[in-house]
């Protein structure tokens, strides 16, 4: 029905807000400020990583659930009929099939993550977008900088989607004769 995969109901919060909440908000919690974690949580780098991980984990859980649910019942039954159960059934039948089902959706989530790293620039992390912003503010050569930075991001997302496509093809090697 909906071709966009499972709906992103989980994360209705803007990622930038989550980054701010972690970067500025956590410092307000005194016990945390005195804990061994503080050297990390003080750093924009680790805050950005934490925010990205939290942001994607909820959706990834959704992808996994959808993929496992999509495993055809008759394949599971066939596994049971061979005497498989429990961990063996999961490891040999359910998870491999689910991986093939969920991979494409997970690939687009990974691309979203690449784009999402750009927000770390707002909390002073000088990654790609951060550098682009600095260059724009100092030179005002907006279009040249956009083209170069955009091209780098496009190259990264292209590499990522190609990697996923290759991995998918590898997994679907047993279907190759059908396509031929």
């Amino acid at each position, binding site marked *: *029905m*909906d*071709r*966009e995969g499972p*709906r*992103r109901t989980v994360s*209705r*919060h*803007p*990622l*930038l*807000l*989550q980054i*701010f*909440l972690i970067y*500025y*908000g*956590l*410092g*307000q*919690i005194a016990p945390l400020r005195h804990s061994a974690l503080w050297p990390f949580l003080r750093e924009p780098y680790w805050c950005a990583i934490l925010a990205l991980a939290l942001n994607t984990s909820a959706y990834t859980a959704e992808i996994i659930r959808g993929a496992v649910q999509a495993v055809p019942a008759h394949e599971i039954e066939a596994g049971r009929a061979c005497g498989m159960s429990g961990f063996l059934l999961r490891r040999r039948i359910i998870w491999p099939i689910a991986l093939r089902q969920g991979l494409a959706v997970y690939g687009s989530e990974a*691309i979203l993550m690449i*784009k*999402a*790293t*750009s*927000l770390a*620039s*707002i909390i002073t992390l000088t990654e790609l*977008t951060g550098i*682009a*912003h600095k260059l*724009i*503010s100092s030179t*005002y050569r*907006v*279009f040249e900088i*956009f083209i170069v*930075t*955009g091209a780098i*991001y*496009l190259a990264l*997302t*292209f590499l990522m989607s190609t990697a996923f496509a290759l991995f998918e093809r590898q997994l679907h090697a047993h279907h190759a004769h059908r396509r031929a």
Partner: protein
Amino acid sequence: MTPGMFDLLGFGPQGWGLPLLQAAGITISAALCGFLLGSVFGIGGATLKLARSPVLRLIGQAYTTIFRGVPEILVVYLFYFGGSVVLTTLLNTGGFPGFYSLPSFVMGVFAVGIVSGAYQAEVYRSAYLRLDRGQIEAGASCGMSKFLLLRRIIGPQTLRFALPALGNIWQSALKETSLLSVIGLTELLRQAGTAAGSTRQPLLFYAVAAAMFLVIGRMTGAVLGRMENHLAKPWRR
């Protein structure tokens, strides 16, 4: 005495209630304008991608690839700074020296719109491809003009098929408006940041902003869900 939570969030002299609500209004209006502008770009993009001419198809493909592949924040910078560069250059050559910039709301809406449009183009395109050719032919066989076909048959059915995915894109547009805080638009996130800075209560205000985003998302989602349900009625047996 430091003010309590309810004073901070209330509508009193120390309260940030009213500014936050106003900011939420700006968030909603920026998202709505961006999304509607995105529909225009989206329909245009889908038309290009469905065009017979390979050149037009390539333009459409380039549009959706670029604006879906490049981070939204970069697009916001492109429009905000690019817009003022173009405007300044134009006015300077026209004999008005100085530096000019455009309102961040307008440029922000354009940025949200062009990104949203790239996603919407894909949705409209695949919805159009799902249409039953026979029904379009039936319209033509009754003497419907191209415009009438578009208005009475193709449009409503495409919208029906596109609506579930458009709901997701609306939620993205809503979230993207938070990026407009970086170009100085006082939307929800920026207002929360201002409040957090002046009260030294970032946890509270960002949590409140998060809750407000959630409520806006849920409420608009419910409205869209209702529309979807209504438009899906003819297809239920």
